[in-house]
């Protein structure tokens, strides 16, 4: 059974149909690329999977359980982590605090336990702090750990989001354009990192990215959308050579544009 199953999902905003009957699945430990032209509905689909939008029709199964209609905050404890296309950091907080905030769903201490600093709360805090330190090191954020995120450059902020999404040890990580704002070298590094993350954290990744090079390199499979419909689903090679995908998305010079 697949980890994530998207079944016949439709999303309409007034007159606009952003997602029109998309189905696909992501297996455990799989890296799945999600590509498509601008406005194809990728981010919308992400928002459906992570529970931010409720689909007009269709449903999403995660780890065997139908999660459509669940409250939004239930997704993280189930093992879903995500980053955002346009950065959604807690701007007044430092890098470390942002990452620690990501550990929220791993903890249980409530108002009283926190106010009284009960041992359980302290243990939780210490554990989270330890994991945060590891992740900061791994993502090379140690130097800026105590800087408010608003003071960081765009690319650095993207990495903070990644750390924040990882700290809870999700089973599925949704990454919305993680390579945005990275240069060639950094993109290569990112590819390594993604594989590394999968190995270390034992998770699956659903990756939205316009950086074809990256997608093709790391993905086990790729799903392509256009105008909200799925136009291709297969191995990177299959999708890359799919005429529909070339027409709608890559263009003839597609490989040229983002090739390195």
């Amino acid at each position, binding site marked *: 059974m697949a980890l994530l199953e998207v079944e016949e999902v439709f999303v309409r905003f007034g007159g606009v149909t952003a997602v029109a009957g998309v189905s696909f699945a992501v297996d455990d430990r799989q890296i799945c690329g999600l590509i498509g032209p601008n406005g194809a509905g990728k981010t919308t689909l992400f928002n459906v999977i992570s529970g931010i939008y409720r689909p007009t029709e269709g449903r999403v199964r995660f780890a065997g359980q139908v999660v459509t209609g669940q409250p939004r*905050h*239930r997704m993280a404890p189930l093992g879903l982590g995500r980053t955002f296309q346009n950065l959604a950091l807690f701007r*007044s*907080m430092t890098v470390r605090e942002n990452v620690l*905030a990501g550990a*929220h769903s791993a903890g249980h201490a409530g*108002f009283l336990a926190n106010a009284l600093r009960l041992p359980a709360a302290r243990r939780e805090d210490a554990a989270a702090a330890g994991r945060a330190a590891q992740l900061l090191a791994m993502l090379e954020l140690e130097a800026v750990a105590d800087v408010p995120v608003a003071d960081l450059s765009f690319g650095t902020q993207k990495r903070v989001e990644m750390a924040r999404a990882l700290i809870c040890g999700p089973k599925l990580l949704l990454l919305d354009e993680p390579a945005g704002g990275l240069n060639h070298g950094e993109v290569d590094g990112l590819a390594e990192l993604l594989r590394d993350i999968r190995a270390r954290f034992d998770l699956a990744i659903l990756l939205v990215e316009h950086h074809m090079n990256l997608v093709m390199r790391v993905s086990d499979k790729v799903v392509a959308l256009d105008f909200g419909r799925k136009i291709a689903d297969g191995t990177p090679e299959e999708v890359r050579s799919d005429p529909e995908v070339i027409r709608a998305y890559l263009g003839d010079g597609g490989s040229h544009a983002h090739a390195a």
Partner: protein
Amino acid sequence: MSAAEQTAAVPLRRPETTVAGWQRAALLLAGLALAILPAFLLESFQLFQLTMAVIMALAVLGLNIVTGYNGQISLGHGAFFAVGAYVTAILMSHLDWSFWATLPVSAVVCGLVGYGVGFPALRLGGLYLALTTFSLAVAVPQILKHKAIEDWTGGVQGLFLVKPDPPSWAPFDPDQWMYLVAVLVSAACFLLAWNLIRGRIGRALMAIRDHPTAAEAMGMDIATLKTRAFATSAMITGIAGSLSAVAVEFVAPDSFTFALSISLFVGMVVGGVASILGSLFGGLFVLFVPNIAETVSKAAPGVIYGIILIGFLFILPDGFAGLLRRLYARARRGAG
């Protein structure tokens, strides 16, 4: 990029000091000693003023939890202050409870009221919430006066009560004792609030303020956290209300008009939004600055107060806490 991003809702926080456990304990003790000292140095009238300032600071702290840290603007915290004061006053004057016994009741009642207010607050943001809470501030005096509960509240005439007596073993006069009570209760609340803010919940409250959608994606249950933040905040402000009832030994609807809510809000802004220590300064400001204004001009002290307030905000737009943060940053740069 939205406007909100440019003028962040709150000043960006610089990293907190990291001090070792024993240092913290030493600091805490020193602070407590410093707080207790005035009881033996000041005249009783000044002590009364300081008592009121501490009480205001505690009320501002409550407001800061929900507005400063959690970003839910409340212009009506005077209402919780009033509820706390009345709970204590009613229990003491009608049922002859001791002051100490009324405190937990007052905290619980205020917490419940705050929890209730938290629900519409879930749906309403920004100005809409400001209106809602402000309405609460405006409505509370009317409700207190209402004939249905007049027998309990004393209607427009209010209720009288008495300060808690100093314990027989203690060599304190009632004013000193009242001050110590206020300091101890407040110190306990400040400490708990400090713990709360530094921990998992505090981070969640701030995260929700900064980016609710991302907060939800991190597994934060916004509805629960926000309503509980409101309850906690109301509880703290309500305890301040209880203290004020015994310190003044009188409650009446006119003690809790919306002017009180405005005062608390001013205290929060000048102290520093989302700052625990700032709340303390805010309490001192709203208590003492009106008196300073008055010494400048008897003809229109309100005008002077307004001028001082605006002038203060010109110099320290992020409040007293902002000054502390800058001094701290400079000290650190100097050292490092």
